[in-house]
């Protein structure tokens, strides 16, 4: 019964593109309600792993279970139990705030009554009720990112995947963004987040660092620091990615 509390269960995940091995025997579990940091240099295989976890790409071999479903056999079940947000895209610029919310709410199967209720709660929590009918293009990047996150968890997914959600936003907005992440985690939503900001890694319950397609470390931030005898996550990261 140990795996039942794990919302993500990865065993011996291998992904090959021809001769190139992007993910080399990954093994990890993520607990319900955990904030799980996924770190690694560019090209370390993070994006490939996320794509597999989200059901966008198939593993070459190994077992990947997300929200209790095997991504190979039940990708549709996986897709409806997760949320996803990436730094590259945060909602449509030429739609209004509410139109964006309604679009993604409907796509994730919410009724229009639920969408109305939840979007009202969400906008008042963010304090932008009066921006409801503004075009998204008129909002700042920080607001767009916060809104995109809120939309990604609107359907109360079991897990939300965040792919570098805070790139390009100012430190204050990043802080506010992480408050939103903690709120979601408190509500029992598991957060799987990749980031380049190593101070953000400190906010995670547990952190994985990928190097060249392998997991080279997986522990709590405090555990990693003692294990590698470093003061900051920055040093931990450098020590693992550049051993000499």
């Amino acid at each position: 019964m140990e795996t039942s509390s794990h919302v993500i269960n990865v065993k011996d995940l291998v992904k090959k593109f021809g001769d190139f091995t992007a993910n080399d025997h990954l093994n990890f579990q993520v607990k319900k309600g955990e904030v799980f940091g996924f770190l690694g240099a560019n090209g370390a295989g993070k994006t490939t792993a996320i794509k597999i976890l989200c059901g966008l790409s198939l593993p070459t071999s190994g077992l990947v279970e997300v929200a209790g479903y095997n991504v190979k056999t039940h990708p549709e079940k996986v897709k409806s139990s997760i949320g996803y947000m990436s730094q590259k895209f945060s909602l449509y610029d030429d739609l209004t705030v509410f139109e964006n919310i309604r679009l993604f709410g409907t796509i994730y199967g919410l009724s229009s009554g639920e969408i109305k209720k939840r979007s009202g709660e969400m906008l008042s929590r963010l304090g932008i009720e009066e921006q409801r009918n503004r075009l998204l293009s008129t909002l700042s990047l920080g607001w767009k990112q916060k809104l995109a996150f809120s939309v990604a968890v609107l359907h109360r997914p079991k897990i939300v995947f965040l792919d570098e959600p805070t790139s390009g936003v100012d430190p204050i907005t990043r802080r506010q963004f992480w408050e939103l992440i903690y709120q979601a985690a408190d509500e029992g939503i598991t957060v799987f987040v990749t980031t380049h900001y190593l101070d953000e890694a400190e906010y995670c319950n547990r952190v994985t660092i990928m190097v060249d397609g392998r997991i080279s470390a997986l522990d709590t931030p405090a555990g990693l620091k003692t294990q590698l005898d470093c003061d900051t996550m920055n040093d931990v990261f450098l020590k693992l990615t550049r051993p000499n």
Partner: protein
Amino acid sequence: MNVKQLWSFIRKEARHILRDKRTLAVLFVMPLAQILIFGYVISTEIKDARIGVLDHARDYSSRQVIDRLVSSGYFMVQDYYSGRGQMESALRKGDIQMAVVFSPDFGSSMERPGGANMQFIADASDANTARMLVNYAEGIVAGYEFESTEVSSRRIAPLIVEARMFYNPSLRGVLMSVPGIMAMILILVSAMMTSISITREKEYGSMEVLLISPLQPWQIILGKVAPYVILSLVNAITILAVGVFVFQVPMSGSYLVLAFVSLLYILLSLSLGIFISTVAPNQMVAMFISLFALMLPTILLSGFIYPIENMPVWLQWFSYIMPPRYYISALKDVMFKGAGLFVVWKEVLIMTGFLGAFLLLSIRNFKVRLE
């Protein structure tokens, strides 16, 4: 699976289109501008061509010939000249397109066995027009000669060739351009706009978000192309309406067959657009592929402007793989000849084949990308 999801996605796409006012204006104005340009400006027909007359004879017969030329509607007399120099300078300046010269004894020599002399001098810097002007004028003069000669004095029974141009009796160029413009605009709107709008989602990263969502890939594609089907139909109706009501292009076939053939062509163009979007990495490439791979061949190789029969053989073979060629040929059959579905079945079959091929290729490419 869920109709509500698909519907909300179609509405989203429609909003994208409606809120991009500039593109929308181009999409609606372009077809109108095209047909007006082709209809009014680029006409290959002769109407009120400017001629100058150098009449040394000034007799009854020469006036008769001039009257005939003018009353045909093809020519109008710009000026009368008294000397050759005057006439030549008018021709050089482009005041007139053709000069008509009568010899001094024109009328009286018509009675003589040697015959009368007249001369047409055309400005052949525009060779096609010059040739047509001379041909038309010769025809008119020949008719006059035949009628004015006494029956008794005809030495030989003339061989009368009567040519009749069926389906386009007055050889009006606009008739040819309506099917051509429809083919061009529809493939442009359908293929270029859809390929751009799909690659835009790829470029902005929203495609990833959509693919991770519970939406099925076919729902995404259907949602993206559905608004363009309507847009293309509106365009087709606009072009047709202007053609029929403004330029009096005949519509002798059934509107139902026309709608069916057009819908098939629109779907074919959309599937081509989807295919382009699976190949093109970004909007820019999608646009260039659409423009250079679709527009130019449509204009040049589909028989829209240049007759396919006049092309070198290898280009003729190339024109066989141009989907617009079949649409234009089916449209002409339906509109001008009143052909039914049984006449254009070959075109319908070929277009269906193209549609299937593009869809299969797109699905294959899409799968490869997801691997």
